[in-house]
């Protein structure tokens, strides 16, 4: 892999997750994206707690991130991709949950 692309290894995973879940919104006609305030309240406070845990654990050496496979920017020891992770993954989880709820209720309504 070209060296420039190698730096995008972590970001590519996050992009793929979004590409995988976003069609659910259209297919199941979800209202999730039309409720930005509710999404913000569900994702951000939980993300803050997990990010603090992440910063502390990374500082303690429990895990580390490969500089060759992340973009250069770091904040409190974490690559920017790691912050995005805590927004993208919960969002993907919520969309999946809503899609399953819609699929289940669709099956029960004639």
């Amino acid at each position, binding site marked *: 892999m070209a060296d420039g692309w190698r730096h995008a*290894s*972590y970001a590519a*995973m996050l992009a*793929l*997750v979004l590409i*995988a879940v976003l069609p659910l919104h259209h297919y199941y006609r979800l209202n999730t994206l039309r*409720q930005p305030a*509710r*999404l913000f*309240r*569900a*994702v951000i*406070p*939980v993300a803050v707690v*997990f990010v603090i*845990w992440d910063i502390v*654990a990374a500082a*303690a*050496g*429990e*895990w*580390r*991130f*490969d500089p060759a*496979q*992340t973009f250069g920017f770091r904040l409190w020891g974490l690559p920017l991709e790691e912050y995005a992770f*805590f927004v993208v*993954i*919960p969002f*993907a*989880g*919520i969309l*999946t*949950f809503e*899609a*399953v*709820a819609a699929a*289940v209720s669709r099956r029960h309504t004639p």
Partner: protein
Amino acid sequence: MSAYTIASGLAALIAVCADLLVLHTALVRSRTWWMAYGIVVFFQLLANGWLTGRGIVRYSDAAIMGSERIVFFGDGRVAYAPVEDLAFGFALVLTSCAVWAWAGARTLPTS
């Protein structure tokens, strides 16, 4: 016991308590949650397998049940990732979905 082993187990426990006792969303008692989680955990194994199998994220021996050695299965790892990550992911997604359901119950009659 290792730090991440304990912390991730506690996080999963706290998430279940938040769902049942604090937010009263009781997602863990619904079929919808477990069906959604089944899908989430499958994709977690793929996404996290990418992060850990390629060594984008590397764990210290001291923090996990297994060792620093990256193997597909065994030595405390599943799909390259430490098993602790399963508890971590469960806690993250359950808490977010529970707060989502709670926030919806407060603002919308149906969700």
